[in-house]
């Protein structure tokens, strides 16, 4: 029977689950032959390292020198500390894995040993770590003590004024690196200038980059229009490397070329790229990524952007995929390089799943928690949506606050944002005008300042940006031209800050691993701010000021502010004392027992019903059913069960309604236990005037000896406690302050 049914119908539960966002994600069956394996594959080589008498590596991870591909060759020549290798390679995988999480083993000692590991060995060690161990490893091994975060700042139109306003917004929020890119390659120089100027409004010394084709990116960097570079991509197999039109030597040369102009640079790697190109050579993602990370170290890069990046969802499609992404970040840290830790691709349609990808790293801390948080709305993120975007800023600020961790961002008031956005848009308009690149009118500035995204901008000529970009290239406009334009237009502070970014290339401090500038202009890096985490009481700690900043989200309210809401309804009803309450004798009488602060200090329920109105509705319900009502204040308890029961014992019928100022209400009978009321509205925010009336009518029916259908609480889908508990705490504190132990109930009369 059941089998027949199963063939004919879909279960409602499955049909509903099919509509869940997570089921729009693609999931793959593990297939190591295609590289669809996260942590290990039968195709991964066994770790090995053989060195000849001249100190040359003649075998690396099972491959003889004659068979080395370009990646093996470069890593063998430069990437492994051969003085440490005999000791490190001899240690069992599990012992090395334990040293990573053993807080008694110093970070420097782990990094020393990791320097002697081959790519295959490093991957095997990291694969042994369970999620919480990866987190501990990340907390201990990331390079810079102070965490930071990078923003994507882009828009669909490459509108320079919006880019500048959004750059200033990102800096106000706390981002210390800003990355832009272009939907139209030829616009890159215009975007670089807009970002450079906007990034120095509001606070100094944020770094900026423009992610485009390697040669153009280098050219912009050499002229100072960008202040760091990141998109020097590395791959784990030779074929993908060559398909990407590079080799380890061409990329290694780029590393030195950027450094030769004092420019910070990191490389980009990450699982999935080899799989997507069909060239994973049957190896696991973790092993191929270990090759990339080893290559980055071998080339002398200061840092690595990884954790999936463009291929993050490939890792996400296989078992252990999210774990692999975090393990990638850890491998960078073990190689003692700056980790710019991914989270820059939306890994899932599911909010639960994308949060679950990011939160473990956020809690552990990293050099850069995102290698691109989409600081703009998703439709303007020209990298494609990041795992968190402009829409998620408040969520992220709340997550920092929830966990007491420094995610690098801070709440910003609307007034402050308006101020920096306006100044940034004006400053860039002035630079473009001074340099004869384009003229933007005031209406355009205003539109950019108030816009949420480029969709809010009026239509304008797309040729303007292209012409400006072409002129920047043709005239070889440099950072010095931008400084002069700012100064001539009266933007002295920004001129000074942009020039300071040029000066920063001269001392070379930004070339050390994990270097950033803080808002005081200090360089924080492996050299000046090394991570010294060694367990509780060590490592990065929120200062009291920073903790207060993280705590002060714009949505938080003090008790005083909550009570001010109450004051708006003050004195709309007057309850005057008629002396001590006596026990009634009328069998048709129902007593309404109210709480200590009811209509004394509290005036409106959490459902927004003025307390006088709630009282009137209950009385009307009683009256409709032919009962009379008497109001009594219970002074010596704030517990609704006891309020109701005390009132019931005074009631002629033995039935009472208990009512708290916050709106919770019940029907009680004098012979019941305190918590065993007859009927209860337990969720005050949902109780309407109509429902109070029904409660009154039912109380009357109980008084008459009938057995009415109990009132029901409405069904709720929302997080009702999350919405209202903060307010409830404020109201309860007032009830408690007016509660008087031992004071007898008091008879009240309504004066209207």
């Amino acid at each position: 029977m059941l089998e027949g049914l199963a063939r004919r119908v879909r279960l409602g539960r499955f049909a509903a689950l099919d509509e869940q966002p997570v089921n729009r994600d693609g999931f793959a069956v593990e297939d190591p032959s295609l590289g669809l394996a996260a942590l290990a594959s039968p195709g991964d080589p066994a770790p090995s390292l053989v060195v000849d008498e001249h100190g040359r590596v003649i075998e690396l991870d099972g491959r003889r020198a004659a068979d080395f591909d370009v990646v093996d060759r470069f890593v063998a020549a430069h990437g492994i500390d051969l003085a440490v290798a005999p000791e490190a390679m001899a240690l069992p995988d599990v012992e090395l894995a334990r040293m990573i999480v053993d807080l008694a083993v110093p970070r420097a000692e782990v990094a020393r040993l990791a320097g002697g590991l081959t790519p295959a060995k490093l991957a095997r060690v990291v694969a042994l770590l369970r999620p919480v161990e990866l987190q501990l490893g990340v907390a201990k091994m990331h390079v810079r003590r102070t965490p930071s975060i990078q923003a994507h700042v882009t828009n669909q139109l490459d509108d320079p004024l919006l880019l500048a306003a959004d750059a200033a917004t990102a800096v106000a929020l706390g981002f210390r690196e800003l990355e832009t890119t272009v939907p139209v390659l030829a616009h890159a120089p215009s975007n670089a200038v807009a970002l450079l100027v906007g990034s120095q409004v509001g606070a100094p010394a944020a770094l900026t980059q423009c992610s485009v084709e390697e040669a153009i990116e280098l050219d912009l960097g050499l002229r100072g229009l960008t202040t760091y570079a990141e998109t020097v991509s590395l791959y784990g197999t030779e074929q993908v490397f060559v398909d990407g039109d590079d080799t380890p030597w061409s990329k290694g040369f780029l590393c030195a070329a950027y450094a030769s102009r004092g420019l910070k640079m990191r490389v980009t790697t990450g699982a999935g790229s080899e799989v997507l190109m069909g060239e994973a050579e049957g190896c696991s993602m973790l092993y191929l990524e270990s090759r990339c990370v080893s290559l980055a170290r071998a080339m002398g890069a200061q840092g690595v952007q990884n954790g999936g990046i463009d291929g993050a969802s490939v890792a996400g499609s296989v078992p252990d995929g999210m774990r692999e992404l975090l393990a990638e970040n850890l491998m960078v840290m073990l190689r003692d390089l700056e980790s710019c830790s991914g989270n820059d691709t939306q890994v899932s349609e599911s909010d639960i799943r994308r949060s679950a990808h990011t939160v473990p790293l956020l809690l552990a801390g990293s050099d850069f928690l995102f290698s691109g948080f989409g600081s703009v709305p998703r439709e303007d993120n020209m990298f494609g949506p990041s795992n968190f975007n402009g829409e998620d800023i408040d969520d992220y600020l709340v997550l920092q606050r929830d966990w007491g961790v420094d995610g690098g961002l801070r709440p910003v008031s609307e007034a402050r944002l308006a101020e920096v956005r306006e100044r940034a848009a004006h400053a860039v308009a002035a630079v473009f005008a001074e340099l004869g690149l384009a003229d933007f009118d005031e209406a355009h500035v205003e539109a950019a300042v108030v816009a949420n995204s480029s969709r809010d901008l009026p239509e304008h000529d797309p040729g303007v940006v292209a012409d400006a970009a072409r002129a920047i290239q043709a005239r070889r406009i440099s950072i010095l031209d931008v400084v002069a334009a700012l100064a001539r237009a009266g933007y002295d502070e920004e001129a000074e800050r942009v020039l300071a970014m040029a000066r920063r290339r001269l001392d070379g401090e930004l070339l050390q691993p994990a270097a950033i500038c803080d808002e005081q202009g200090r360089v924080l890096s492996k050299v000046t701010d090394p991570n010294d985490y060694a367990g509780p009481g060590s490592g990065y700690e929120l200062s009291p000021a920073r903790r207060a900043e993280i705590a002060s989200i714009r949505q938080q309210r003090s008790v005083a502010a909550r009570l001010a809401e109450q004051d708006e309804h003050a004195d709309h009803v007057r309850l005057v004392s008629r002396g001590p309450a006596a026990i009634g004798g009328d069998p048709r009488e129902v007593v309404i027992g109210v709480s200590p602060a009811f209509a004394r200090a509290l005036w409106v329920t959490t459902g927004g019903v003025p307390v006088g109105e709630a009282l009137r509705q209950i009385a009307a319900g009683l009256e409709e059913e032919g009962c009379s009502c008497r109001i009594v204040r219970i002074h010596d308890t704030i517990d609704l069960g006891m309020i109701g029961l005390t009132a019931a014992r005074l009631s002629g019928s033995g039935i009472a309604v208990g009512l708290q100022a916050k709106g919770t209400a019940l029907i009680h009978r004098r012979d019941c236990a305190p918590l065993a009321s007859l009927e209860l509205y337990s969720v005050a925010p949902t109780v309407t005037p109509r429902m109070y009336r029904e409660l009154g009518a039912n109380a009357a029916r109980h008084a008459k000896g009938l057995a009415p259908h109990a009132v029901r609480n409405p069904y709720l889908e929302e997080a009702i406690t999350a919405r209202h508990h903060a307010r409830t705490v404020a109201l309860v504190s007032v009830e408690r302050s007016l509660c008087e132990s031992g004071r007898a109930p008091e008879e009240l009369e309504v004066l209207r």
Partner: protein
Amino acid sequence: MTRAFSGRALEQITVEAVLAGELGADDVRIHPDTLREQAAVAEGHRNPQLAANLRRAAELTALGDGELLEVYEALRPRRSTRAQLEALAARLDALPAPACAAFVREALAAYAERGLLA
């Protein structure tokens, strides 16, 4: 005291100097000595690879922006013949940029074996 590639002191890189037209590109370029100092810092922090990169960078300060782009282009796969890379290495040696020359020769050997020469 930190100096720019041009020899100008850091303190002289001011907005006033920019407006007076006194500064050129070499005034906001890093000096090779500074890169060698940073290489020593990297060495001291147990990162000989970063140190080597910074020493190559110190040599590359002698190249103009256009020349840097040319060398990068020459090192991309199948852009250069053996003779072209040998000539490039010789040019770098003459600069003198011996570490960069060695780097190019190492690339040449790898490219020859892996079929990446033009």
